[in-house]
């Protein structure tokens, strides 16, 4: 039973979506875009009401991949929830692991040795690069480029996934971080293959940009589309490249100083207009900054233990209390909120999903645009349904 999208949302306010009146006569065409649609990143439905080609109303429908991760986590121990965090944002499993490990380490005050911090940064930045490349590939596929940029992106992604498989045992669901460090050490061979990958990345990003950044179809379809004002972005809790493309200087790596990001010199790219093209360019420039961080980290990585020897793994029972830990995941601010009551299982385990909260402003960006642009705007938000629905 699909309810009609005529919901009473006529609440006025500066942070409410604009109310657009149809200018023709006749009824609005109500279309359900999804849950099975070639252009949605998974099972996601948007109920749109169209006046010709213009979007008058857009209501997203979530929950088609709700796998009740939070309820399962209440019944399992802290460590056993780590493989489930892999499956949240299934493109970037290592950053999900890091966010969860950070939250638990904050809860108990666990220290992490230096080499483990370097390894975490290296793997997180590699994850960021392959995520941004895949996002741009999917965005261009939805614009009709039929997979060619996506093939280039996946070619690089396969190289990075080879390293992940050698190191952690799995291409995608790595389950690598632990509370207090990492699971296995990166040997010299692993570091060499990481250096080889990083050496090839600037050439790949140049090739990608030469193919796409000044492409007139991409510029015509992306510039001026889906503008997001910075005040609305902050008020709506938008985070990640979408927030920075609107011109807001907020990168959690610089704000929270988590990990050892303070030791690396890197810039934060900001956009001017907040449209789809700015989000694309911010992602490309972030890939370049990640290469800078990787070069510095691979040069300075020290020897040492990768796990705190005093960390308690078996019988892990944190004292009662709560903690909220967050990182700059490739999609935005990924946070974990844990309430512990002294038992081996958490009392409350909450994932703060960046993809879901970035979708709060989907309606604002799409109203008034044509229905073909909805697909492009939706692709630029960069969501993953595993994270939206958990």
């Amino acid at each position, binding site marked *: 039973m699909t309810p009609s999208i005529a919901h009473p949302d006529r609440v006025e306010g500066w942070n409410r979506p604009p109310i657009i009146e149809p200018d023709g006569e006749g009824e609005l065409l109500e279309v359900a875009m999804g849950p099975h*649609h070639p252009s949605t990143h*998974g099972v996601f439905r948007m109920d749109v009401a169209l006046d010709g080609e213009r979007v008058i109303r857009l209501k997203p429908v979530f929950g088609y991949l709700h*796998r009740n991760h939070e309820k*399962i986590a209440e019944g399992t121990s802290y460590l056993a929830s780590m493989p*489930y965090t892999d499956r949240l944002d299934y493109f970037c499993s290592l950053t999900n692991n890091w966010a969860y490990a950070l939250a638990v380490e904050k809860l108990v005050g666990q220290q992490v040795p230096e080499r483990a911090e370097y390894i975490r940064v290296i793997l997180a930045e590699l994850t960021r690069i392959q995520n941004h490349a895949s996002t741009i590939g999917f965005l261009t596929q939805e614009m009709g480029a039929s997979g060619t940029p996506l093939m280039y992106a996946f070619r690089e992604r396969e190289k990075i996934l080879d390293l992940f498989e050698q190191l952690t045992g799995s291409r995608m669901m790595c389950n690598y971080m632990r509370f207090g460090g990492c699971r296995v050490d990166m040997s010299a061979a692993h570091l060499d293959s990481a250096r080889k990958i990083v050496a090839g990345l600037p050439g790949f990003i140049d090739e990608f940009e030469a193919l796409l950044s000044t492409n007139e179809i991409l510029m015509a379809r992306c510039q001026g589309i889906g503008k997001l004002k910075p005040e609305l972005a902050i008020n709506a809790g938008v985070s990640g490249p979408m927030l920075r493309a609107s011109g807001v200087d907020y990168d959690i790596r610089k704000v929270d100083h988590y990990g050892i990001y303070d030791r690396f010199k890197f810039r934060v790219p900001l956009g001017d207009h907040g449209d789809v093209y700015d989000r694309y360019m911010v992602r490309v420039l972030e890939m370049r900054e990640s290469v800078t961080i990787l070069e510095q980290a691979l040069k300075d990585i020290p020897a040492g233990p990768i796990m705190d020897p005093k960390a308690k793994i078996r019988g892990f029972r944190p004292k009662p209390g709560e903690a909220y830990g967050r990182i700059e995941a490739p999609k935005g601010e990924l946070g974990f909120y844990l309430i512990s009551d002294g038992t081996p299982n958490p009392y409350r385990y909450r994932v703060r999903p960046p993809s879901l909260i970035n979708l709060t402003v989907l309606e604002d960006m799409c109203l008034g645009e044509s229905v073909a642009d909805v697909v492009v705007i939706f692709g630029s938000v960069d969501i993953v349904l595993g994270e939206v629905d958990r």
Partner: protein
Amino acid sequence: MAVDQQLKIELGKQGVFVTTIEELYNWGRKNSVWPMQFGLACCAIEMIATTMARYDLARFGAEVFRPSPRQADLMIISGTVTKKMAPQVVRLYNQMAEPRYVIAMGACAISGGPFKQGYNVLKGIDRYIPVDVHIPGCPPRPEALIQAFMTLQKKIDGQPLTGEKRPRHLNPEAQGEFPVPEQGAHDLEPTSNSGVWPIPVIIR
């Protein structure tokens, strides 16, 4: 009536091909199975990686992934089927034209997977629709998906044209429409389709 292999090879060297209608029919069908672009969750990314340059699925005949179920032959259920999505999956399966096949990719599609203790997780898509090939894994590697594809091709190759074991599209009495579950107050109604998924009796 099968053809003697030696005779076939000898004649083939002379440029004369001897075959049965069944072999020819199945050869044509199995080498151009077009999957539907239907990805649900994490396994969908491995499915996409299988179609990309490194593990190319197109060389097995799955050249184009059709978005519309009317034009597709194969539905690869890649990812967790939730109870909210299950009626849609069954509807899409009903809309596919015979002959149609289903590959259940990944642990979640086979039996609910790691999310089995979920109030919104359907514990296996074979509760409602018949599945031809199951691939275990979480997620299964692209090579595993290619192996499943080859298994499906072998299965299609072995389907006779007449007789008891003929496929559904040649059998006018076979069931074509599978009932779509309703979303009830607490769960899907019915919880499973007993024609497709007979509940095994466990003796404890």
